[in-house]
């Protein structure tokens, strides 16, 4: 079986005014459909950089990124955006919902620019699934942190991605709410066969993950 996403010998270097910082050093990584992988490591270890490379938001300096067996390392911005839309759902620590849009509209955002007549229906179903069927038309500021993260999860799922990337998904949530979000991840990857990759310091996440990868100073331990 091909991995849904794979990094081969990935290096990422930043030139910060004369000094070259190596954020990722020869990283090999993969995730399979239905798998829950957590990436742990201290801050500054390159976790976010790795997530950005996995999510086609950033390109590696060296190495190869394979998405569903296809080499996507050197795609143009337009093609990368198209691939992101099709394959990847993002969840952020601070939710990043658009404050002027309702919960339903926020979930629809990834489908908005493009002809997608069933988007509203899918968005409604997803919000019902994450337990917000009665909050469809609430604005983000009318929702609690856990509810916002559920909206963000619904948004990440609306294009039926194969990979869900989460950057500190429980970072802004209390323990109990964090747990309910993680339960939701667990359900999603089992039911939808989605690979969930979460970057975190939260040890609680380790209980849910099939596999935990430690990243220290840009290297997988």
């Amino acid at each position, binding site marked *: 079986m091909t991995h849904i996403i794979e990094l081969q010998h990935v290096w990422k270097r930043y030139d910060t005014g004369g000094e070259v910082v190596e954020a990722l050093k020869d990283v090999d990584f993969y995730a399979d459909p239905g798998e829950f992988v957590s990436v742990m490591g201290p801050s500054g270890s390159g976790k976010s950089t790795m997530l*950005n490379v996995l999510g086609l*938001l950033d390109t590696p300096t060296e190495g190869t990124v394979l998405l569903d067996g296809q080499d996507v390392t050197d795609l143009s911005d337009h093609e990368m955006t198209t691939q992101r*839309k099709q394959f*990847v759902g993002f969840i952020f620590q601070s939710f990043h919902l658009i*404050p*002027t849009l309702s919960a339903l509209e926020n979930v629809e*955002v*990834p489908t*908005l*620019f493009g002809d997608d007549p069933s988007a509203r229906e899918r968005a409604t179903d997803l919000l019902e699934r994450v337990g917000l069927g009665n909050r469809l038309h609430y604005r983000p500021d009318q929702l609690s942190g856990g509810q916002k993260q559920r909206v963000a999860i619904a948004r990440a799922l609306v294009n039926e991605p194969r990979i869900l990337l989460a950057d500190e998904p429980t970072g802004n949530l209390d323990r109990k709410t964090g747990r309910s979000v993680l339960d939701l991840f667990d359900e999603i990857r089992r039911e939808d066969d989605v690979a969930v990759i979460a970057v975190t310091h939260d040890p609680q996440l380790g209980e849910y993950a099939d596999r935990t990868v430690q990243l220290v100073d840009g290297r997988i331990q």
Partner: protein
Amino acid sequence: MSFFDDLFRRVPALLMARRNLSRNRIRSGLAVLGIIIGVLAIASLGMFGTTLRTGADQQLGEIGNEISISPNLQEGVEELTDRDVDEIERAVTDGEVVPLRSESALVSRGQQQTVATIYGMENPGALYEAQEGRVPDRLRQGALVGSGTAEILDVEPGNTISVDGRTYRIAAVLAEEQGISLVSPNNAVVVPLEDVNGTGYSQVVVSSDSGQAANESAVAIRESLNERDERVNVFELQAITQGIDQFFGIINTFLIGIGSISLVVAGVSILNVMLMSTIERRQEIGVLRAVGVQRGDVIRMILAEAGLLGVAGGVIGAILAVGAGVALNSFVLNDPLATFQPVNFLYILLAVGFGIGTSILSGLYPAWKAANERPVEALRK
């Protein structure tokens, strides 16, 4: 409501733009205000120019439709003969030829007396209209009195007046000529031609229906009468009115230019607003890019915002401009409906177009900047 839902569904950039603008109403409102002022300035200054021109045209009257032929005194021609008049009549295809003699004389009625210009002409009906009484086609007896003279002498049709010792019965009091005229009737008395001393004519006036016909007549008369030597001077007022028209055209352009400056200022304020709001929203835009929104769609979204500001400012500005035009025209011309001339709609259209154009132009840089920011950078906390 369903219309907007439908529109937003079709053009999602508009939905996002609309919501973004409502986020900071005061700021959006101020940006719109800038465009309103700019559009109002261009449109109302343009209309102001039209009002000036219309007012001037009213003052000038139909002067452009008349030409005057007089003997060339420098060449020794003292007066125009019947032959000259025949030639003029042959040259003029469209218009009435009125040969006349003039002098100044004392006009009196009882104790009242005044000095007036006396015109001797056979067919005054071609030039004048009556205010009271009737202007005959052929003036064989009686006199026509200009409104100014009639007022001084306190006369009306049916009275008799004495001109240079001769007694006339007044056939009509002539309507006051508002504009400038080659042979103004206001302080004059028109009598039959043979009653004014002389054999030839001191002047021939040709009255046409249009400035163009007058111009053609003038050319034809010059060709015909001045073929061998410069017998006559042909005085055309059309050249003057054209010059005046041109002058007002320049004033108009100048006024609109001034108006455009305010629109440029408005454009800068929109640029500022859009730039601020895209900087504030860089994370959001980063999220949009992360979830698969293309660069082009981000550009469209921000241009739609700028465009909406422009449309709102343009529409409100246009409405205010029409109001200003109505006020101005009712004040200056006593005719508020003079606002609704095609040329004014052109100015309004121009102003609104400029307003929307300026807004979109001002949105270009912020849009480009937002779309080209790498989502990774934008999302960094």
